[in-house]
């Protein structure tokens, strides 16, 4: 966050609503490290009166910043360490990172051993945090997640941030996050969900609830590179978060495949990957090792190597934080280093400390970020939006076990990547919007974030809307969206009535009222008043035809006239009827129908609708795709 908020145009010195301190963000995660400066409560008054939660104190104390903390152990098994069982304290660092990204205090001169230095801060630094620890290690049991939602909704939150997920059932009400976020929505709480790290495969989304906001991860303009110099004076650049400085001293370099631990029966085919126990300590000690692997060089570290170079096909966007000087090289540079080692009598190399460069291609959706379409309801476009999620620096838990045993460094901050990191950017942005508009519904806040998002280009982003939804969040603009696409519980029930697997009986149980599907059904998912448009064309069919009915609510100028501006690719004819909407007062609603016709020759076509009154531009993405 030392760069991410500034990169998306959300500077620290921005007008804030005094009511920001009344906003409460609930974080379902691995707990929190309460002693972090991110959660100091200096200047915070007592919790807002709506707060009804509690603090499960043990080796943990809440304050006026972290106003609530609970932990859930119903699902944990014997494999979980006992040490931190009875506390909301974060032993992994993940929950501390996400909570500080959403609502952490500003901390100047934050860095990871000098990398990424700047002011770390949350999106809504005056907001309060309520912690619900549901994850132990990497595992988050469903019974605990559901219990946390049960409490969190009753505690009086405004936003729930959930940077976890997994397989989603075809039925929304067999998935705990969908169940929890549905009841959150009924209670006026917006849930922000991480899209998942299953990309770049299509339909790899881990969270798809239509009543929540699903967040993809994209890059910022700060990129970390790690320079490597060989004895022949050749230099190349790899990626890593190398916090060590070899001061330019050249060390002998050896190929991992030439140093097998034969005493333990290992041969070249194993030692080339530098796994634990595969290398001969005598051969690698004091040297830099070249490994044929893209993962943490555990063996090289444990066997006393000075450094490691990993050659890998997919550098991806995840910048690893190695336990020794290391750089991840692409295959071309890796091959050069290999040939240099093989052709030189005394090959040497050095690895420099990582440095930052300006990534002019940003924002780009991360390769790992899960893609749509949503297989359960393809005509609800997911993910909804994207936010920074690559190499994000935020607070960390100093007791978090290092990746490699024996690496005893303690971290106050860490730089990590994932949709876990992008999700709390949206939670913080949603809290910021909520602080200006305390009465807005979850759907209204989602609409404001989506329709004001910065448009990304399908030319530079693989899978276009399936990767980034409406685009990159722009919280400053989201406070004044002009128009909103609102929806409430009844709309979602009507939507569910039109989907397979939801009967009047089950929906009555879920809502507790006497609604009947026969009276209220939306024929297709396209009728849900969503701020984006997704039209699925049956397989092997090139003809496109469909329509969407939408209602927009005026939250801009009391008297205004919006004109529809449609951008469509060749082959698609898209029209809004009417194409002019006039408003005479705030809160006035107007309805229009968007029709799409034409042909599709590729799997995905990107278009957009903008309602423009000269002051506000209300943009919705349109995705037409072949199922």
């Amino acid at each position: 966050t030392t760069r991410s908020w500034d990169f998306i145009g959300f500077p620290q010195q921005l007008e804030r609503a005094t009511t920001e301190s009344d906003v409460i963000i609930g974080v379902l995660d691995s707990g929190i490290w309460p002693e972090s400066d991110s959660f100091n409560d200096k200047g915070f008054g007592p919790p807002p009166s709506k707060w009804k939660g509690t603090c499960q104190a043990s080796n943990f104390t809440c304050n006026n910043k972290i106003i609530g903390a609970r932990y859930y152990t119903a699902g944990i098994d014997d494999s979980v360490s006992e040490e931190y069982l009875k506390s909301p304290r974060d032993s992994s660092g993940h929950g501390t990172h996400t909570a500080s990204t959403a609502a952490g205090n500003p901390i100047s001169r934050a860095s990871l051993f000098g990398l990424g230095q700047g002011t770390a801060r949350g999106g809504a630094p005056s907001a309060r945090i309520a912690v619900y620890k549901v994850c132990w290690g990497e595992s988050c049991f469903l019974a605990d997640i559901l219990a946390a939602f049960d409490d969190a909704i009753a505690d009086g939150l405004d936003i729930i941030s959930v940077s976890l997920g997994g397989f989603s059932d075809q039925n929304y009400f067999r998935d705990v996050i969908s169940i929890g976020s549905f009841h959150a929505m009924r209670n006026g709480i917006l849930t922000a969900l991480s899209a998942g790290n299953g990309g770049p495969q299509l339909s790899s989304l881990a969270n798809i609830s239509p009543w929540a906001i699903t967040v993809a991860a994209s890059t910022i303009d700060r990129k970390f590179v790690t320079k490597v110099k060989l004895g022949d004076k050749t230099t190349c650049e790899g990626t890593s978060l190398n916090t060590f400085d070899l001061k330019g001293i050249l060390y002998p370099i050896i190929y991992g495949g030439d140093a097998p631990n034969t005493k333990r029966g290992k041969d070249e085919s194993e030692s080339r990957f530098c796994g634990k126990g595969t290398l001969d300590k005598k051969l690698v000690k004091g040297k830099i090792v070249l490994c044929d692997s893209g993962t943490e060089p555990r063996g090289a570290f444990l066997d006393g190597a000075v450094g490691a170079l990993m050659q890998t096909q997919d550098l991806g966007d995840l910048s690893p934080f190695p336990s020794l000087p290391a750089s991840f090289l692409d295959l071309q540079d890796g091959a050069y280093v290999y040939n240099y080692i093989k052709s030189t009598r005394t090959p040497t190399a050095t690895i420099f400390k990582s440095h930052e460069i300006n990534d002019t291609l940003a924002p780009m959706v991360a390769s790992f970020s899960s893609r749509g379409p949503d297989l359960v309801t393809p005509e609800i476009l997911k993910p909804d939006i994207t936010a920074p999620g690559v190499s994000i620096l935020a607070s960390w838990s100093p007791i978090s076990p290092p990746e490699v045993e024996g690496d005893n460094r303690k971290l106050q901050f860490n730089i990590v990547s994932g949709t876990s990191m992008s999700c709390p950017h949206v939670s913080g942005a949603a809290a910021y919007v909520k602080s200006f508009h305390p009465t807005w519904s979850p759907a209204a806040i989602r609409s404001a974030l989506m329709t004001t998002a910065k448009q990304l280009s399908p030319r530079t982003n693989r899978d276009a809307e399936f990767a980034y939804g409406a685009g990159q969040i722009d919280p400053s603009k989201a406070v004044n969206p002009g128009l909103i696409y609102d929806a409430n519980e009844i709309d979602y029930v009507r939507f569910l009535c039109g989907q397979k697997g939801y009967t009047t009986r089950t929906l009555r149980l879920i809502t507790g009222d006497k609604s009947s599907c026969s009276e209220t059904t939306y024929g297709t998912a396209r009728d849900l008043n969503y701020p984006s448009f997704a039209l699925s064309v049956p397989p092997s069919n090139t003809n496109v035809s469909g329509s969407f009915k939408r209602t927009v609510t005026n939250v801009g100028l009391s008297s205004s006239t919006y004109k529809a501006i449609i951008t469509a690719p060749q082959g698609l004819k898209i029209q809004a009827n009417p194409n002019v909407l006039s408003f005479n007062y705030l809160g006035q609603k107007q309805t229009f129908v968007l029709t799409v016709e034409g042909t599709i020759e590729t799997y995905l076509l990107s278009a957009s609708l903008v309602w423009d009154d000269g002051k506000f531009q209300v943009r919705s993405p349109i995705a037409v795709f072949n199922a």
Partner: protein
Amino acid sequence: SKNPDDLKTYIVYTGSNMKDEGSALSIYTSMLQKVSDSNAKPKSVLHHYKCSFGGFVAKLTEEEADTMAGLDGVVSVFPNEKKQLH
């Protein structure tokens, strides 16, 4: 089905919450009785959701879980598996 090894932890989701926590618990207990063998040891509610929606956690066999899913008042029944941090 009486072999404890066959038991798995399931979540039974019952929709919106009931106002009276006591009656909710007795309804859940009665549901467990309905699905289990009358000769078997009585089953207990391991945890129940009571603040914002209804439901409970119990150890069931696969067969009992299937029967439970068909009971009046039950929206869904699914095993207590795991999700992961992202």
